[in-house]
Structure formats: structure tokens, C-alpha cells
């Protein structure tokens, strides 16, 4: 089909402001009379608050001070359940838990004051690891320290063990990972009885913040307003945490009667806010001599930190993705999210899937070795195909061809030739090279019935000048929302992209399009934009104001005449789930996602055996993501995700001491620099998806799933190390290499 904008690398809508430095991020805003806010946090992981002391050298009468008792309505950060307090009142459950808030016009005095508040806490025994939590010596949450558990079954794994040719077991671990958006968390609030509460912030989900503030203040929805400012990266880190920060800024503004800005410095951002859930996975796999996988028994546990927050949903995605794009007749996944006295772990691109996919794809290389097959041959004999059934009972109706993706990835990376060349050249060399790959899938949108419950909305509105405004709650945080929405609207309406205005998300103006998460913006909300645009066009055609062939000028004339005759020209749409999809929440079976992205990634590494330093030398990412709306932006998503995956695999090591991150600085928490990333070659396979806008599916999270296991498999290939956990720092690799030689 001939398109004007879809499939074209249209320039980023807000790009000119970004390259000239004129884009206004939260910290670039200043309000008259504004105070700065700071948070006094718990120094210890668990205990009972005994007293709060204010050292006398600070002019405390100049400060606005907010404690839990000042909260107008409910002391919680409303999310799934309301177990997380906005300010700890009697007990603290993790280090850095907020206890008290301060505001003052002078930032420097404020910082001195923050250090001059001393919280006396009587320590209680704390839990720091998954093992300790499961041992239940201390019950720190609910009756059993378990936030949520799932049992997902297909066939009967227990029938298989006795007759299987081979059983391969393994245990895998992944560490916490910091989102490390370069713009720290920030929020400005204005609040009073008279005007209600307004916040401006760096955030992904305006309506999450809106809901949290309604509960905190006990105000009706029209008296709470949330405005997203230009957001300097999110990656999940600005999904749920901004609700907490907005609550704090709003409480200080409410009490002081003045606008209050809180911007975290990097150290506070790193130690106090959410990270990727650490995980442990056990695999037990029955396999026939011919490489056919007969049963997969998977046990998956994530560390949720001190409060439930989003852990059940992260666990759900990790559980569903745990058995990958394979057709295995018997699968059982038992999973749980447990409590520890660490700051709550939260959303981070991939959302549980990178953890369970790492375990699976690393394990399958070991299974292949055990049966004496090449890693690719084992996959080939087990790949899901159209009509096959995934581990949760979903019959694949997409034209999936994993073998073809693998072939393309191997061709582009020269996989076979390099694999054998490295194997011969590595002998006697101190630099050992290896290649490895991972095959995986990632579901787009909310899981199961999630999108039906969300019932997202979007609105298009035409102006008399023939410009069309897109009103949606989806936020731009660098991933390209504004650009792709304007491409979808322009294509459908048959006018120029420059005629489309994307309204900045502000809950006073835009409807609730659901959160900007879960690889759902292009596919789900983009789909709403497309439907609304189609309806607007049809309205003008039916009114006889547009002829079937028209240009931007006649479109503008039609809008003008329509508005003159009938009033506002608006097109409002609400999400409708594709027919024929069913999900059973009790059995955890059915159509978990309406569409999947499918991918094969290949990594090439070199390892210096003297220092155990690892470098990724080359990377090929092949994926089928439906129609690509904007090739430059889509490739940018994959490249950036691969870089974050390299960090997850090799460098990004959160060091914990007593439940507190002790390397909360960019100096000692290492993310990839321009020296660390290899050439990343991104190849798309495009099979248009019937229910996506112009055929698009989701891609945002995908690259985080497969990058780390591809690298881990490459390291195993290069060195013979039996890689079981990430990040694979030189220290970790040395340990693994010692085991090889032991």
C-alpha cells in the first residue's frame, strides 16, 4: 500500500526544541515565590520510629515541615493495593523510606536542615534476600512475605520425568538494575483548599499520579490536575515513582500555600527510587535424544522490596514470558514475588521478562550441550509455529517464523563462520572470542484482560484552520509518541504531519489513554488515534464537505465549514478488545497478549582472560514487529534497548549493604558509554498486524529481553564458563572460570 508518512523516517516532532536546548524540562521551570522541597529518609531498613529530633542550629520557624499526620486523607501511594505509605508514620520498612518533608526558599539551607533532622528508630530484624524472605524467620509483609504467586500449567510435567531421555537442571540469577534516566525525578506542585492540587512533573503516567493524589487528599477528580513536562527518559523508572514524588511536593505546597519544587539529586534518585526486580529462576527440563523438549518445569522468584507496588504485574509478565517462543507439550511455571526490606523494586523496561528470558535462553544453551546439539539446532526443533500453543495455552495466530528470523540474524552476523573460526583461534590465545544468541518474544500491551479493564480513550479535535489536535494521555519520553501519533493521524486524515498538533498531556485536557508502559503506546493508543482519525474523516465525507480526493487546503475548508454549521469537530474513541481473545485469570491461561514481537539477537564478544574484561564487539538484532511506523525511531528504540541490555549483562551492578544501595553514583554504578557499545545492526521483519495502527505492534521493551542472554551465551562460548548470573562483572567471570578449571 502506498503511504505518505507511515514507514517513513519523519523527523521527531519535538526535535527542534531538543537540539537547541529550548525544551523545558521540570527543573527548567521556576514559579514566583517557589520553595524547594527535601525528603528526610530512614537511615535503617526496618524499625519503629521513636522520635524525630530537630537540631537547634537551624531556623526551623522558616521551614514548612510535613509529617504523616499532616496528610489530609489517606496516607498511601495508591496503585494496586494501598500498602505503601506516602510518609512512614510508625514503622519504616526500608532504608531511605520517606519520613518527613521540608520546604524552604533557600536550597542550600534546606540541605543543611535535612541533615539536621534526626530520626530515632528502634531497629527491628530485617530481611534482605529472596532466601531469607522465603525462610520466613521474619514476617515483614502479610502472613507469609509473598506479594503474589502464580501457577501456570500446560499438560502435565510430572508425567514426563520418568520416561525422559535426559533431564537438565539449572539455577539462574539476575541483579537489580537502575533505570538511570539522565534527567532525575522532579516535580512542582501548587495546592490549596481554594484551587485544589496541580502538579507538573517528569513522568510517564499522568493518570497514575492523578489517582494517587485523589486518594491522598480526598479530593474529587476535577480538583486534581497533573501536567507532564518534557521528560528526560523514563524506562519504567517514571511509571509509579512519580506518584510518591507528586504526593510529597503537593503536601508541602498544601501546607505552605506556595509552589514547591522537588528535584532529586543523582544520589537520592539512585538509592531511594525503584529498580529492576532481582530474580532467581530454577529450570528442570526433560528432553528427548532428538532434542525435542518434553517438559519444562520453571520456578521463578522476584524480590519486590518492602511494598507490593507493581510487583504482581511484573511477576505476571515474567511468568508468561518464562517459557519463551517454544512449543513444549508440558510446561509448569510456579512463581512468586516476595518482600524484602529494600526500597520497592519497580517497573523497568521489560518488566519481569528480561529476568525469566535470561534464565531460559541461557538454560537452553546448556540443554543443547547436554543432548549434543548445536544451540540453534535445539531451538529449531522446538520453535513455536503458527497454530502452535504457547505455555499459557494461547494458540499462535500470527505468521510467526522464528527460523527465518534466526537465519537472517545468522547471515547478518556471519554466525556459523565466526563460531568455528573463534573456536580454532581461541586455542592458546589470551583474548577469547565467542558468539551467542537468544530467541524470544515480547507481548505488546497489558496482559490478559488488562486492556479491556483499562478501556483507554483518545480524542481528536479539528480547528477551524484545519489543524488537528491529538489529545491522549500517552507521554513522550524520548521513545517517539508525538512523532508516531502525528504520522498515524496525518496518514489516516490525508493531511500533512505538520498539520497535526500533539497536546501535551495534562489531565485537565486529555482523556485517560492508560499508562505509557508495556510496549502499548504505538499499538494500543496509536490504534485509538487511527480510529479517531478515520471517524473524523468519515464525518467530513458524510457531511458532504470533503470529496474523496482532497488536499490539506480543502481539508481545512471542510473543517471550517463543519465547525461553522455543526459546532466543534471532535472524534472520541474508546478501546475495544479484538474479538475472539479470551483470558482466564484464575487458571492463568488463554490469550495473554493480542500480539507479540518475535526476535533473534546475536552477540559477539571478546574476553581478556588475564583481566576477565569483556567487550561486546558486534551485535545483530532481528525482529518481527508488524509494520514499522518510523524506521529511524524504531531502530533507535532497539539500539538504545540493546545498550541497556549490555549494561544489564555486564556492567550495572547494584551493590547492597543492609538493604541500601551503596554505589548510588554514576562514578561507581557503570552504564555503557560510547566506548562500550558495539556496532548494533537492527533488522526488521514486517508482517502487518491486523489490529495495530497501519499494522504496527509494540517494540519498546523487546530489546531488553534478549540482549543479556545473547551476551551470556557468547561469553560461555568464548570461555567455557557456565554463566548463571548477570551482571557478569570481571569478578563474577573470574569466579566462574575458576569453576571451569577446578
Amino acid at each position: 500500500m502506498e503511504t505518505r508518512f507511515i514507514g517513513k523516517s519523519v523527523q521527531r516532532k519535538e526535535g527542534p526544541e531538543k537540539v537547541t536546548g529550548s525544551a523545558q524540562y521540570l527543573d527548567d521551570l521556576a514559579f514566583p515565590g517557589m520553595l524547594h522541597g527535601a525528603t528526610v529518609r530512614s537511615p535503617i531498613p526496618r524499625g519503629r520510629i521513636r522520635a524525630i529530633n530537630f537540631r537547634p542550629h537551624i531556623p526551623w520557624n522558616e521551614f514548612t515541615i510535613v509529617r504523616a499526620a499532616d496528610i489530609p486523607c489517606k496516607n498511601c501511594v495508591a496503585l494496586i493495593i494501598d500498602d505503601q505509605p506516602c510518609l512512614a508514620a510508625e514503622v519504616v520498612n526500608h532504608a531511605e523510606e520517606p519520613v518527613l518533608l521540608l520546604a524552604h526558599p533557600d536550597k542550600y539551607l534546606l540541605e543543611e536542615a535535612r541533615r539536621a533532622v534526626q530520626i530515632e528508630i528502634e531497629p527491628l530484624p530485617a530481611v534482605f534476600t529472596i532466601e531469607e524472605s522465603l525462610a520466613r524467620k521474619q514476617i515483614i509483609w502479610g502472613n507469609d512475605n509473598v506479594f503474589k504467586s502464580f501457577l501456570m500449567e500446560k499438560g502435565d510435567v510430572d508425567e514426563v520425568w520418568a520416561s525422559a531421555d535426559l533431564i537438565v537442571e539449572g539455577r539462574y540469577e539476575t541483579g537489580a538494575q537502575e533505570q538511570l534516566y539522565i534527567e532525575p525525578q522532579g516535580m512542582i506542585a501548587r495546592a490549596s483548599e481554594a484551587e485544589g492540587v496541580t502538579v507538573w512533573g517528569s513522568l510517564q503516567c499522568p493518570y497514575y499520579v492523578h489517582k494517587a493524589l485523589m486518594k491522598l487528599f480526598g479530593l474529587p477528580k476535577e480538583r486534581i490536575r497533573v501536567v507532564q513536562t518534557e521528560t528526560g527518559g523514563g524506562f519504567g523508572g517514571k511509571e509509579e515513582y512519580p506518584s510518591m514524588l507528586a504526593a510529597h511536593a503537593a503536601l508541602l505546597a498544601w501546607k505552605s500555600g506556595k509552589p514547591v519544587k522537588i528535584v532529586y539529586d543523582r544520589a537520592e534518585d539512585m538509592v531511594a527510587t525503584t529498580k529492576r526486580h532481582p530474580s532467581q529462576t530454577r529450570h528442570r527440563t526433560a528432553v528427548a535424544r532428538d532434542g525435542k523438549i518434553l517438559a519444562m518445569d520453571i520456578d521463578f522468584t522476584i524480590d519486590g522490596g518492602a511494598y507490593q507496588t507493581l510487583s504482581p504485574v511484573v511477576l505476571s509478565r515474567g511468568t508468561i514470558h518464562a517459557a519463551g517462543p517454544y512449543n513444549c507439550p508440558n510446561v509448569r511455571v510456579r512463581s512468586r514475588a516476595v518482600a524484602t526490606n529494600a526500597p520497592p523494586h519497580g517497573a523497568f523496561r521489560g518488566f519481569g521478562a528480561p529476568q525469566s528470558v535470561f534464565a531460559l535462553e541461557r538454560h537452553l544453551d546448556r540443554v543443547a550441550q547436554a543432548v549434543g546439539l548445536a544451540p540453534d539446532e535445539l531451538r529449531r526443533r522446538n520453535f513455536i509455529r503458527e497454530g502452535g500453543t504457547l505455555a499459557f495455552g494461547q494458540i499462535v495466530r500470527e505468521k510467526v517464523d522464528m527460523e527465518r528470523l534466526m537465519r537472517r540474524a545468522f547471515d547478518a552476523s556471519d554466525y556459523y563462520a565466526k563460531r568455528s573460526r573463534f573456536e580454532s583461534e581461541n586455542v592458546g590465545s589470551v583474548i577469547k572470542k565467542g558468539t551467542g544468541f537468544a530467541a524470544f518474544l515480547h507481548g505488546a500491551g497489558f496482559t490478559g484482560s488488562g486492556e479491556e479493564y483499562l478501556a483507554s480513550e483518545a480524542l481528536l479535535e479539528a480547528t477551524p484552520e484545519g489543524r488537528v489536535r491529538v489529545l491522549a494521555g500517552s507521554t513522550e519520553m524520548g521513545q517517539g509518541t508525538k512523532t508516531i501519533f502525528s504520522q498515524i493521524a496525518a496518514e489516516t486524515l490525508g493531511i500533512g504531519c505538520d498539520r497535526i498538533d500533539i497536546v501535551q498531556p495534562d489531565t485537565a485536557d486529555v482523556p485517560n489513554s492508560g499508562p505509557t508502559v508495556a510496549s502499548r503506546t504505538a499499538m494500543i493508543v496509536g490504534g485509538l488515534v487511527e480510529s479517531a482519525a478515520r471517524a473524523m474523516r468519515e464525518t467530513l465525507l458524510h457531511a458532504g464537505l470533503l470529496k474523496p480526493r482532497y488536499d490539506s487546503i480543502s481539508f481545512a475548508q471542510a473543517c471550517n465549514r463543519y465547525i461553522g454549521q455543526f459546532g466543534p469537530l471532535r472524534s472520541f474513541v474508546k478501546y475495544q478488545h479484538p474479538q475472539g481473545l479470551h483470558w482466564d485469570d484464575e487458571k492463568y491461561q488463554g490469550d495473554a497478549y493480542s500480539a507479540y514481537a518475535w526476535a533473534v539477537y546475536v552477540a559477539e564478544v571478546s574476553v581478556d582472560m588475564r583481566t576477565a574484561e569483556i567487550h561486546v564487539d558486534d551485535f545483530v538484532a532481528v525482529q518481527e514487529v508488524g509494520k514499522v511506523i518510523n524506521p529511524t525511531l524504531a531502530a533507535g528504540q532497539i539500539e538504545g534497548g540493546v545498550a541497556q541490555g549490555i549494561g544489564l549483562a555486564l556492567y550495572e551492578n547494584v551493590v547492597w549493604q543492609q538493604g541500601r544501595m551503596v554505589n548510588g553514583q554514576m562514578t561507581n554504578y557503570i552504564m555503557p558509554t560510547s566506548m562500550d557499545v558495539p556496532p548494533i545492526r537492527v533488522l526488521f521483519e514486517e508482517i502487518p498486524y491486523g489490529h495495530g495502527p497501519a499494522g504496527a505492534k509494540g517494540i519498546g521493551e523487546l530489546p531488553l529481553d534478549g540482549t543479556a542472554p545473547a551476551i551470556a551465551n557468547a561469553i560461555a562460548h568464548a570461555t567455557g564458563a557456565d554463566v548463571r548470573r548477570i551482571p557478569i562483572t570481571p569478578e563474577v567471570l573470574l569466579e566462574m572460570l575458576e569453576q571451569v578449571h577446578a
Partner: protein
Amino acid sequence: MPDSVGKVRVHCRVNGRAVILEGHPMARLLDVLRDELRLTGTKEGCGEGECGACSVEMDGALVNSCLVPLMHAEGSEILTIEGVARERLHPIQQAFLEHGGTQCGICTPGMILAALNLLSRHPKPTETEIREGLAGNLCRCTGYTKIFESVLQACRESERGS
């Protein structure tokens, strides 16, 4: 020169304009640019000289303005992102726009200053020179690939233009 309350007056040029900056001698150049001159294109990402979001050019050298005390700016020539485009976008800005060099945009001002500084030293940089030239500027969105492409494109454009 320090005055009675410990503040200094510093004479320098910012984006070609002579300015007098006032503040504590140890005030960070970053804060003075942002708060006094309202040049908010220079960003704070870490405050410890690691991320490069606050990069500006000072007398032709790329510096992290979060690590520069105000008193060091005396007599200097400073270029911030606001001074890069003249009548129209600088070729580097144009290249970042066209080749996906900017995503969330928070590292972009510093990255563009770093690229500009790199090209002033190496008008035809090799891939290694580009990687090294940008190594002090962290980007969490792009994986750097499109930034490298943008820099190479800007070089090609300037070759064509010269």
C-alpha cells in the same frame, strides 16, 4: 574580586555576549548559567562530572560546568547550547534532528557541544575518534549508534558545504 559578603563579580563572554556574573566564588558555573542567565539548555544529570549533560565549551575546551567554580570563568569565552544555532540550526543540530541523534533530549545539549568540540579538533573524525570524543557524555536512550551517524552526517554536510 571578592566583595564584602564573599561574592565575586566575574567578567566573561557567554555565547558571544559580554556578561558580568555575580556569585559565591565556588558557585558552580552550571547553576550560574541556569539560574542567573536563565540558560537552562545546560542540564544537570549527576553533579559529579560523570554524565556530561552539563557540558559547555570554555575557551574552546569542553568542560563539565558542574565542576567549574564561578571564579574560574573570569575572562573566559563560554559557549552553551543556546549559542550554537545562529540564523538557522547548526549542521550538527540538523544532523541530530534528521538521523535520530536525540530521543529524550536531556543529554542532547551536552552531546551536541561535545560533538562540536570533537569536530573542531578532528574535522574528519574516524569512528574511534568519535567514540572517544563523546565518551564523557552519557546517553541512556540511543545506544549512541544514531549519535555516531549524526556526527558523521554533519561531517559529510560540512564537506559538501566547504
